[in-house]
């Protein structure tokens, strides 16, 4: 093959990543050491689980299953609360690992509190997970552009590190939401959170399998939806996008970046290919770029859009 070896380095909102693979929120994000292990297995950056002010137990088991074309989960955003999580953040940052703090809350103030504590503890980027349905207003953040705008403005006022918003695909018009988020001052967007939700019924017992009955879909089944969302968002806004959803290998990474992502989030692929999937994907990405004459990630970003 070619002698050039593609440079996988990329900069995400001021943070240098050795490669564009990022551990997605909710996977192995319980402890610092587990995040460090993911980094040691090749990730360019890691994301915490969704962290709230108070601890949350989440839903009863079963919470995470696989249905043959992806995973289904209703973990229910279990987390120990930001106070109990600060130590984990500090331990990760001691190793100088690029770290995204994923935050959840019921009200704007919740997000602000968590974001500020995270900033103080040294995280690089705040990710607002707005797919959480329990909020003050009847309409959830994720499908209400106005509610979302106020959240973004408030958090941006409170912290000085970059703030990105993680969008749900389960809306009628993701472009409208993306535009609102950019206009409100967000530094970036990550997309997508899980699809559906879905449900699996065990027919022998005539019972939904998940304790919460429903669960969000991730993995290979949702990749086309994720690619389309990122493509649409890239057409709509100028801020960088982290593309998440069904990324299983180097080629899917290329596809997501061509759709408009500056970096990719990876979660379910751990199930299919093991913890070292980050290393594997980086190698596959680099090999593909070499064979196809690309030397930097930048050349790929948004390449599928008509010029």
């Amino acid at each position, binding site marked *: 093959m070619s002698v050039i070896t593609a440079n996988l380095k990329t900069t995400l909102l001021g943070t240098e990543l050795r490669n564009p693979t990022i551990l997605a929120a*909710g*996977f*192995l*994000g*319980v*402890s610092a*050491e*587990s995040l*460090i*292990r993911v980094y040691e297995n090749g990730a360019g950056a890691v994301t915490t*689980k969704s962290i709230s002010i108070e*601890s*949350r*137990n*989440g839903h*009863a*088991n*079963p*919470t*995470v*299953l*696989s*249905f*043959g*074309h992806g*995973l289904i*989960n209703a*973990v229910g955003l*279990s*987390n*120990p*609360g930001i106070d*109990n*999580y600060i130590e984990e953040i500090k331990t990760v940052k001691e190793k100088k690992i690029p770290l995204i703090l994923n935050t959840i809350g019921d009200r704007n103030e919740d997000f602000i509190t968590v974001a500020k504590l995270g900033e103080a503890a040294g995280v690089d980027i705040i990710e607002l997970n707005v797919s959480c349905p329990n909020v003050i207003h009847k309409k959830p953040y994720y499908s209400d552009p106005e509610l979302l705008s106020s959240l973004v403005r408030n958090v941006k006022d409170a912290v000085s590190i970059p703030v990105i918003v993680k969008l749900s695909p389960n809306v009628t018009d993701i472009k409208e939401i993306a535009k609102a988020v950019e206009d409100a001052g967000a530094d970036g967007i990550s997309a997508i959170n899980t699809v559906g939700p879905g449900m*699996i019924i*065990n*027919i*022998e*017992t005539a*019972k939904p*399998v998940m*304790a919460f009955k429903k669960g969000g879909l991730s993995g290979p089944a949702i990749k086309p939806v994720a690619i389309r969302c990122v493509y649409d968002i890239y057409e709509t806004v100028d801020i960088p996008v982290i593309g998440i959803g069904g990324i299983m290998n180097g080629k899917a990474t290329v596809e997501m970046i061509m759709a408009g992502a500056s970096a990719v989030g990876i*979660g*379910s692929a*751990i*199930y*299919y290919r093991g*913890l070292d999937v980050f290393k594997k994907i980086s190698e596959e990405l680099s090999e593909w770029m070499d064979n196809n004459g690309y030397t930097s990630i930048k050349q790929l970003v948004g390449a599928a859009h008509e010029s």
Partner: protein
Amino acid sequence: MNHNIDHTAGHGTDMPKAVKIKKIVDENYNTKTFFLDTKLEAVPGQFIMFWIPRIGEKPFSLSYIGNNTAITVQLKGKFTKKMFELSVDDIVGIRGPYGNGFTPQKNACVIAGGCGVIPLVPLVEMLDKPVVIVGAKTADAILFKERLNGNSKLYVATDDGSLGIKGFSTDIARELLKRKKFDVVYTCGPEMMMKAVFNLTEQHNIALQASLERFMKCGFGVCGQCIINGFRVCKDGPVFSSEQLRQMTEFGKFARLKNGKKVNLKEYYSWRS
């Protein structure tokens, strides 16, 4: 398109599969074995996730492997209480087997405490004349005495001296390891006991395989709930080597609650009661 395989099933389906309970055996006053109408390819030390519809799902080690598939359960709290209400012919769901299991080796010593004996029995049956040390509160509480006696030299310790020596399995082990050189030690039981066994094997420079326990969600290594230091008990374990145990500062000290909070083992064990 290859028409010989089921294109619609997809890959890696980890979904509770309905199985009938074939037989339930009372092992002692607080322990039952559930024989399941299914056949699993598994190795000793692997576990399944056992689902009771609309109640919950928890991990249990296989106590019978091969022609029979069974798990053996000690009544502890909410979920095991519901399990004890199950009857023959009831349908439950299982997925797995999960985890790595034990690697059988020659010249072995097996050290079990309480219900820690459960994953160890199928291993003992597979080993070549191992030495087995079992500890329990009382004679009644010792599980699978016959199966353990089969091809092994069996030592027993009880808290009240109702069988074997009065004391802990680690007391027997301490003496035995002084006298006899083993190539490998297998252990499962209360974590403090396993910690003591680990100290012994480190001292005597013997390879240890210890089966750990943590609260689980996915069972297949993605959620991070069962983490102990950087290791996933469900996927990297539940059986860990001496080398891995050496890296575990949390071993014998800390575990994580359902919400992920790191607490000492005492708080961990009391959380669910």
